[in-house]
């Protein structure tokens, strides 16, 4: 072979796959999701990435729009009878699972049963239900022991663990065991054979899906599979993900590191926007079992020193348009939001907090703070608290570890001498604090409460009242009372909302704005 022939052949070999790659690229949407997809069962785990996957593969009976209104999704509609004790749901015609089988009422019944075995809001429904049964192929009925105005909201909940519909044979799996079949009725089929956990997941458009006619809004309306194929590329290194987006090797990056946003914004082929309309909520959690935070006066003293802006700037930098202080336990912009009882959180004075600490009898007890160094947003807020506790003169024992270690150690109720803890940080999606039904961190039922184990019979009683409240005005009144009491009990310190924009190539279309991540509807122009 002559040298020129060899060079030409070699060049063709290298070039050919790229040409092919370009042809398929316009039909394929390449996404860098926020985390590695490790589990495919949205009931078994509450991992956000599993929920994102599930919104592609499964459908829900109900959805919710931007005004927090419940809308039918798989359901065509519902009837309420017997003074609010009976709900009859009718399914839309023509809905099919990915294996071609029709979606039936009994699939919904089995899915609801599995969902309420694990989900907190679902458990409230289960507690109040009398019976649930399929009436025929398209209708199922839920009978309640007494009227429960939150039933629709529970079935429509968009966050944490939504009620996804699976075939009855799959949904009959115990909620404590992972499902082994991933057939849904959503707009995309999961391509099981292409799944490489930690690297890639792929989805193909489900041609049999019939979208609703309404425009998509949050989790309601049409779910259109505009991209023929969707690939998730798990890129754990933020700098690499940023470079891949800039070079056009991927099309959409769900949550870029805040530090990299200026670089991405400078690239005219990249759009950086807030896809999440509510944002992320920071939390400083306190352990109520051990000194010094077993003393409510010390917990209230800490509130006086908190400056939410410090925490929010630590995460997003000096960009006020990307954060909102929120002096409330309830989600900013949500129907329960109020600043009632939050005066202590607006003081922002280390000196006053020091005085209050002395008055409360703080004697220099060790404060063990668990610090997850591998989560940039959580770590940034945690460092602000460490600095604050030192400035308050507290005897800080700062324990840096990875998130896996923190989530194990935070479950320990032991005293700090035996591996216990006093303080840790985490973050939540905005909808997780929308109301008492969603906010598991607001439970104050002592040993059964979320980590930190706060106790307040008053809050628990108010919570029960909230579930039985007949209308929104009454719900709001009770939620306000809960908050006023919560600022006395201080189950944790709310640290405001920050936004985490997404970044995508300018030829990506149909990005949905919603507090939960929804990848359907997105497509790509040539």
């Amino acid at each position, binding site marked *: 072979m002559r040298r020129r022939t060899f060079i030409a052949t070699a060049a063709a*070999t290298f070039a050919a796959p790229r040409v092919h790659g370009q042809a398929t690229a316009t039909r394929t949407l390449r996404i860098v999701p926020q985390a590695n997809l*490790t589990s495919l069962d949205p009931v078994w785990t509450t991992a956000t990435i599993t929920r994102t996957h599930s919104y592609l593969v499964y459908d829900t009976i109900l959805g919710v729009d931007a005004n927090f209104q419940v809308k039918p999704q798989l359901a065509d509609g519902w009837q309420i009878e017997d003074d609010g004790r009976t709900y009859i749901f009718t399914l839309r015609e023509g809905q099919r699972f990915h294996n071609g089988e029709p979606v039936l009422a009994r699939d919904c019944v089995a899915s609801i049963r599995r969902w309420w075995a694990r989900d907190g809001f679902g458990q409230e429904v289960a507690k109040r239900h009398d019976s649930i049964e399929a009436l025929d192929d398209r209708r199922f009925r839920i009978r309640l022991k007494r009227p429960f105005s939150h039933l629709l909201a529970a079935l429509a909940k968009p966050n944490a663990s939504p009620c996804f519909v699976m075939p009855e044979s799959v949904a009959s799996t115990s909620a*404590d065991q992972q499902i082994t079949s991933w057939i849904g009725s959503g707009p995309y089929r999961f391509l099981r054979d292409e799944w490489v956990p930690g*690297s890639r997941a792929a989805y193909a458009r489900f041609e049999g899906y019939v979208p609703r006619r309404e425009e998509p809004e949050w989790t309601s309306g049409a779910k259109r599979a505009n991209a023929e194929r969707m690939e998730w590329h798990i890129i754990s290194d933020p700098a690499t993900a940023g470079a891949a987006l800039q070079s056009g090797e991927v099309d959409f990056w769900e949550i870029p590191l805040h530090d990299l946003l200026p670089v991405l914004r400078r690239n005219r082929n990249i759009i950086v926007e807030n896809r999440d309309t509510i944002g992320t909520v920071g939390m400083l959690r306190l352990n109520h079992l051990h000194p010094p935070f077993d003393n409510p006066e010390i917990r209230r003293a800490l509130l006086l020193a908190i400056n939410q802006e410090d925490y929010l700037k630590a995460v997003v930098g000096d960009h006020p348009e990307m954060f909102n202080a929120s002096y409330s336990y309830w989600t900013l912009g949500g129907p329960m939001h109020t600043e009632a009882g939050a005066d202590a959180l607006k003081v922002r004075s280390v000196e006053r907090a020091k005085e209050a600490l002395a008055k409360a009898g703080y004697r220099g007890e060790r404060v063990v703070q668990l610090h997850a160094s591998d989560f940039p947003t959580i770590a940034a807020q945690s460092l602000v608290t460490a600095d604050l506790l030192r400035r308050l003169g507290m005897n800080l024992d700062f324990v840096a570890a990875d998130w*896996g270690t923190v989530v194990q150690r935070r*479950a320990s109720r032991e005293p700090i001498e035996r591996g216990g803890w006093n303080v840790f940080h985490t973050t939540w999606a905005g909808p997780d604090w929308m109301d008492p039904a969603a906010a598991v961190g607001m439970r104050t039922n002592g040993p059964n409460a979320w980590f930190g184990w706060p106790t307040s019979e008053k809050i628990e009683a108010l919570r029960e009242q909230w579930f039985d409240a007949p209308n929104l005005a009454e719900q709001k009144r009770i939620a306000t009372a809960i908050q006023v009491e919560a600022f006395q009990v201080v189950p944790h310190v709310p640290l405001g909302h920050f936004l985490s924009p997404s970044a995508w190539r300018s030829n990506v279309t149909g990005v949905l704005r919603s507090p939960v991540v929804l990848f359907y509807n997105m497509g790509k122009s040539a």
Partner: protein
Amino acid sequence: MLAYVARRILSTIPVMLVVAFVVFSMLILSPGDPAAVIAGDQATPEDVERIRAALGLDRPFFVQFAEFLWRLLHFDLGTSIFTNLPVSHMIAQRIEPTVALMVFTIVLSVAIAVPLGVIAAWKAGSWIDRGVMIFAVFGFSVPVFVVGYLLAYIFALELDWLPVQGYTPIAQGFGPFVENLVLPSIALGSVYIALIARITRATMLEVLAQDYIRTAKAKGLGTRDVLFLHALKNAAVPISTVVGIGIALLIGGAVVTESVFAIPGLGRLTVDAILRRDYPVIQGVVLLFSFVYVLVNLLIDLLYTVFDPRIRY
């Protein structure tokens, strides 16, 4: 010879058993709980406990270890706690990129480092020698991820010659396969090149001072024949030892390199599993790496007989 090889292979069994025990103990005794990770932030402590029980993580240490060994004896590495996939399947999915990366890196490194070391020794004290040594110090000192980011910035983002990240299996075309491996291999190989180049130089300096080299020169042999046929062959035993030892270095470096270049290999699988406390996956991968390391040492020992016929087993 064959008896020696058989003995060495059999001796890997107790080594692997010790590795299995140490790995298992470290995982069980170290902090972290997969049940807490699975349960997520919404879960209550009771949920976490229920999941621990469902996974069998609440059973005594020796019960869990005995079950692990029993499975191992049946060549069953278990099932991932999170993905519900067999660990052997997950390893099979990931082994090609790692093997490709390591082989590519070793070939590239030896091809660059050995001539560099030989030339540095031959021109000892010259600017060439100093240049090679400066490069070696640079290779040792700069972390792999920094080299990786620099290479990606220059050759992928600025010049657009090569892709930033990813891996293309060789079955999908040799061109894309090589394109994806060039930058990671250079990044991963930087330490390795430095190590081999330094050892080659040091060994060659020793060999070049031997009487038989003077004799070879006196016979009128050319420089190339003296260096590569006489000197390098006699310096090959320590060099091959370093190449073998360096495999461990590469395994460690592969974890970082695979993260920086988003290569779906065993290194990233290990890191992901550790962060989630996916015990069966961690155990499976560490056992595999240990086995490979033992095997590589055996191969190096056998190579000695090729380079130095005086060595007999």
